[in-house]
């Protein structure tokens, strides 16, 4: 990278690092992996920065790199074999609003237990459409597929997610019943 290009990349990296990591987290469901994915993606972007500048939409290009990096990571044998043991239990915060905390915990469960069960490319479409708020056209550009594919992947992803959520809720009810009895 030429010296003249460095300030532009540095500014982009600083302003987009957090949002890229959030998207990566929704892809993979783990903040540590998300951090790695974000760093790897920015590194790849650094090497291709001169081309990105000509295209003039670095954000979309960065998302595309992030998605491919994550999909590549998922194909690695040690990632396939990896089994996470879950999160450490958190201590209760007596000052926190119980409704708010409950909603957040539900959302976290949604990501870590339900969304993670949706197949990778469908999950990516859901994240890009409903978290990044991208249009179908933009998602198609990031995914490198047609708009029709995006629509069908979205529909299938929603069906898969709803099934996973139902399973999650049924498990929760069963556990509550066990505890009550």
């Amino acid at each position, binding site marked *: 990278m030429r010296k003249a290009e460095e300030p532009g990349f540095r500014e982009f990296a600083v302003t987009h690092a957090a949002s890229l990591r959030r998207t990566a987290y929704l892809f993979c469901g783990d903040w540590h992996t998300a951090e790695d994915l974000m760093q790897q993606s920015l590194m790849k972007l650094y090497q291709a920065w001169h081309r990105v500048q000509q295209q003039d939409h670095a954000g979309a290009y960065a998302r595309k790199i992030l998605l491919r990096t994550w999909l590549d990571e998922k194909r690695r044998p040690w990632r396939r074999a990896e089994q996470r043991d879950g999160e450490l239990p958190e201590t209760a915060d007596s000052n926190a609003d119980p409704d708010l905390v409950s909603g957040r915990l539900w959302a976290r469960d949604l990501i870590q237990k339900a969304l993670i069960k949706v197949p990778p490319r469908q999950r990516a479409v859901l994240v890009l459409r*409903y978290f990044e708020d991208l249009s179908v056209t933009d998602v198609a550009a990031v995914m490198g597929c047609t708009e029709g594919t995006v629509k069908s992947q979205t529909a299938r992803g929603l069906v898969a997610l709803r099934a996973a959520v139902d399973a999650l809720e049924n498990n929760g009810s069963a556990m509550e019943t066990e505890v009550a009895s």
Partner: protein
Amino acid sequence: MSEQDLRDSMQQAVWDEPPLDFDPDSFMARAEQLTKRRRALMSVGVATALIIAAVATLPAVLTSGRTRVESATSVSTTATPGPSTANFPWPPNDEPRRNHTYEQDQPYLENMWVNVISPALQRQGADPSSIGVWSPTYQGTGYERDNSAADVLYGSVSYVGPGGPAQLGTTIAGVSAWGPPPDEFCAIRQDANTTCNATRRSDGSMVVAVEFAADKTTSNGFYSGYRSIYHYRKDGSVVGMESRANFVNSTVYANTGIPLTFDQLVDLATNEMIALPR
């Protein structure tokens, strides 16, 4: 779950985001270091590929070095000492000679001409309609190991190539039939106007490249040069291809240069399909 619920849940799911520990300075330094390492690795890779390519192509380059002298009229050659043929025993085995007869081999030879030699000659630029008759015959020569059996097939064919009328001489010696090993062969050909070089090929066989380039002959005033390749094969057989200009008649000076280059002759002589029947 509606789409709006999903949107809200995803926004809420990142509420416990750990603090971002992103230091742009250290990131840029690391990126620069990685880029330099990548470039260095690529340079090493390219250098390695170049070395391998050079090693692989060196024998061919050495052989084709002579082909740069395209114009026979400007060739000024001198006798060169015979090539080193150490570790190249000739004949390479004790396989007995076969007593080839033209009557027996005629169908095989006609088939080889139609399917191998003539197409190969056309690939070297010969006009198909100009290619004359190839009339091979077995005959004893000074290059046979002995004269008890005539296992060396000689033939020539006239054609018109890109440079004009030309002639290709073919020599196909059977297993154990050809006498002089490469160094002796070059010694026999030693002459002020002849060069003779032997090159070992990667498959263990030997290629002898001979070029004769004299001044205009005194008898008819024509230039009479030729260039030939003899392929000493591992099985003990030899295939030779010789290229020379063809004079249309005694007064017309038809072609000034030697038509085929060493590379083209090597292509013909090393064609494994050109061989006597086993």
